[in-house]
């Protein structure tokens, strides 16, 4: 291949470059600066993340292009998901100062790890090749393994980190084997080229492609924590420091969904392909439908029995993964993208409050610890009530709009998905019970002894405000996000056919 064919367009990976360089600089600052110099860590991270967001927006006019020999795809799927990832990272970074202060942990590496994780997530969103998908996934995973165990002396954090690491690499190996078999079966690792091979019916080893697709489904299923591959989720979410749980439940999930869409909805999205291509398409649609149904039902029913806030939110995130998969089954990215945005905002907000109320070492995370605090700390309790109502899908919150849009798209897209929508609606009704429970405890129970009002730093307050405003804004004006998602969808498909 000639160098001119490589198309080394560095501007197209500017977001990834900014976060990676910022991560390295943060480590250097931490190593060389005096005590006072370390205070700039959070500010520096926020500035670089905002710069990353600006870089993503600046790439918008150049949408629907590829660079680095097809390794990077710069389409609207990438831009939208990258923007959501950056918003998640900004909110998490704002919350981090409070967490690191409360726990008296060394701040430097945390911000650096956060930037490296963000780099990996952005790479996942922009990947146009299986190699890039794997690289992005591992970059973000390795950084988050460390973050899960950041409270080094805490046994629970240790255990959470170890479990996350072992099961994360185990699932990555499955994903990788799936990629290897897909490469062998089609003779290419480029996702767009794979689709063309499928459409042309030129698959070299048909059986191998089916096995490869199944293994990749397992790998992705693990990473998005959907049933039946969710077993690590509750343990890891409970044991990790609450802030890290917030990060694990949002950013990486959004990014993995972007890659998942790219590989399955685009690469394997060949419904009318001859022979094995069409068979693969039918198979993964069926498998995902079953995964979505199990995920929603299992997540919601087990969440009913939880008395620990973090575990409850972990099971709720499994259920939300199920709802998102319904949007996925329409093979368009708009429902998934919008649902992930609303879920990320509410989830970050809810975890932020859990973290503020938890005290040092996450001591107070049982729901009973929240008894009667409703009017003691009205700013936190009303916000938590808002997020709980949002996750239950009650208007006028973003959660309602997210669910509504996913269900509506799935209902309209295919009659085969209607049974799933009905299961999802029944599940949403069940879920209201456990989302309302913390609200009842907060406002209608006598106050628990020994409650100390949490002290909010300015940055944490800003993070909380962003999530509250976002939850209400996208509930009242969903079109602002949907316009971006919908009008671009046809253009993205056009370019795929052109190539």
């Amino acid at each position, binding site marked *: 291949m000639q160098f001119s064919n490589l198309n080394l367009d560095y501007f197209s990976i500017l977001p990834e470059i900014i976060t990676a360089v910022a991560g390295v600089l943060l480590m250097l600052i931490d190593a060389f600066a005096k005590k006072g110099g370390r205070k700039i860590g959070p500010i520096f991270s926020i500035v670089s993340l905002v710069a990353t967001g600006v870089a993503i927006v600046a790439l918008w006019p150049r949408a629907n292009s590829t660079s680095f020999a097809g390794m990077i795809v710069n389409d609207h799927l990438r831009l939208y998901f990258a923007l959501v990832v950056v918003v998640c990272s900004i909110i998490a970074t704002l919350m981090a100062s409070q967490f690191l202060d409360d726990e008296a942990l060394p701040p430097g590496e945390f911000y650096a790890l956060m930037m490296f994780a963000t780099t990996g997530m952005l790479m996942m969103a922009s990947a146009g090749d299986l190699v890039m998908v794997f690289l992005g996934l591992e970059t973000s995973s390795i950084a988050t393994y460390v973050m899960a165990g950041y409270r080094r002396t805490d046994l629970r954090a240790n255990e959470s980190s*170890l479990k996350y690491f072992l099961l994360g690499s185990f699932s990555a190996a499955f994903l990788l084997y799936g990629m290897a078999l897909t490469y062998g079966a089609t003779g290419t690792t480029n996702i767009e080229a794979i689709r063309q091979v499928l459409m042309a019916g030129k698959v070299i080893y048909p059986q191998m492609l089916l096995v490869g697709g199944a293994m990749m489904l397992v790998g992705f299923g693990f990473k998005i924590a959907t049933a039946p591959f969710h077993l690590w989720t509750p343990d890891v979410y409970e044991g990790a420091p609450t802030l890290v749980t917030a990060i694990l439940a949002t950013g990486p999930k959004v990014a993995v969904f972007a890659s998942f869409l790219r590989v399955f909805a685009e690469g394997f999205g060949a419904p009318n392909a001859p022979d094995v291509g069409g068979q693969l398409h039918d198979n993964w649609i069926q498998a995902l439908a079953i995964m979505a149904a199990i995920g929603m039902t299992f997540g919601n029913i087990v969440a009913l029995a939880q008395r620990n806030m973090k575990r409850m939110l972990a099971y709720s995130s499994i259920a939300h993964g199920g709802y998102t998969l319904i949007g996925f089954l329409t093979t368009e990215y708009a429902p998934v993208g919008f649902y992930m945005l609303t879920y990320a905002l509410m989830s970050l907000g809810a975890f932020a409050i859990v973290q503020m109320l938890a005290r040092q070492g996450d001591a107070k995370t049982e729901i009973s610890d929240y008894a009667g605090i409703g009017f003691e700390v009205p700013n936190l309790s009303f916000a938590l009530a808002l997020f709980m109502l949002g996750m239950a899908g009650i208007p006028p919150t973003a959660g309602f709009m997210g669910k509504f849009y996913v269900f509506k798209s799935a209902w309209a897209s295919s009659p085969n998905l209607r049974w799933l929508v009905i299961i999802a609606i029944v599940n949403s009704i069940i879920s209201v019970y456990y989302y309302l429970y913390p609200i009842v405890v907060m406002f209608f129970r006598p106050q628990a002894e020994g409650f100390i009002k949490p002290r909010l730093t300015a940055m944490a307050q800003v993070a909380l405000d962003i999530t509250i405003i976002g939850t209400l804004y996208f509930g009242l004006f969903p079109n602002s996000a949907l316009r971006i998602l919908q009008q671009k969808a046809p253009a993205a498909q056009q370019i795929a056919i052109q190539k």
Partner: protein
Amino acid sequence: MVPLSWYLALSAALFTIGVAGVLVQRNVISIFMCIELMLNSVNLTLIAFSRFLNQSTGQLFVFIVMAVAAAEAAVGLAIIISVFRNRETLSVDEESLLKL
């Protein structure tokens, strides 16, 4: 020449041994070694395909997998050390503070 299917059978066997090891072993280090075995069996698959398709893509993929596996090993061993410092054991049966 050795046919492609032999390489694939060998790497599938190694991958299966790795999966079985992860499920059966009780020592964290052994589990970790089994995961490395899984990754390396994938490398074998990639190399075999690369050779038989007359392409370099698979070999490049292997380099990236090796780099990632090295980074993962560094982080993984660090996590294992910090667990060992706090607990003085490496058996996963003892890792049971968090229950389903």
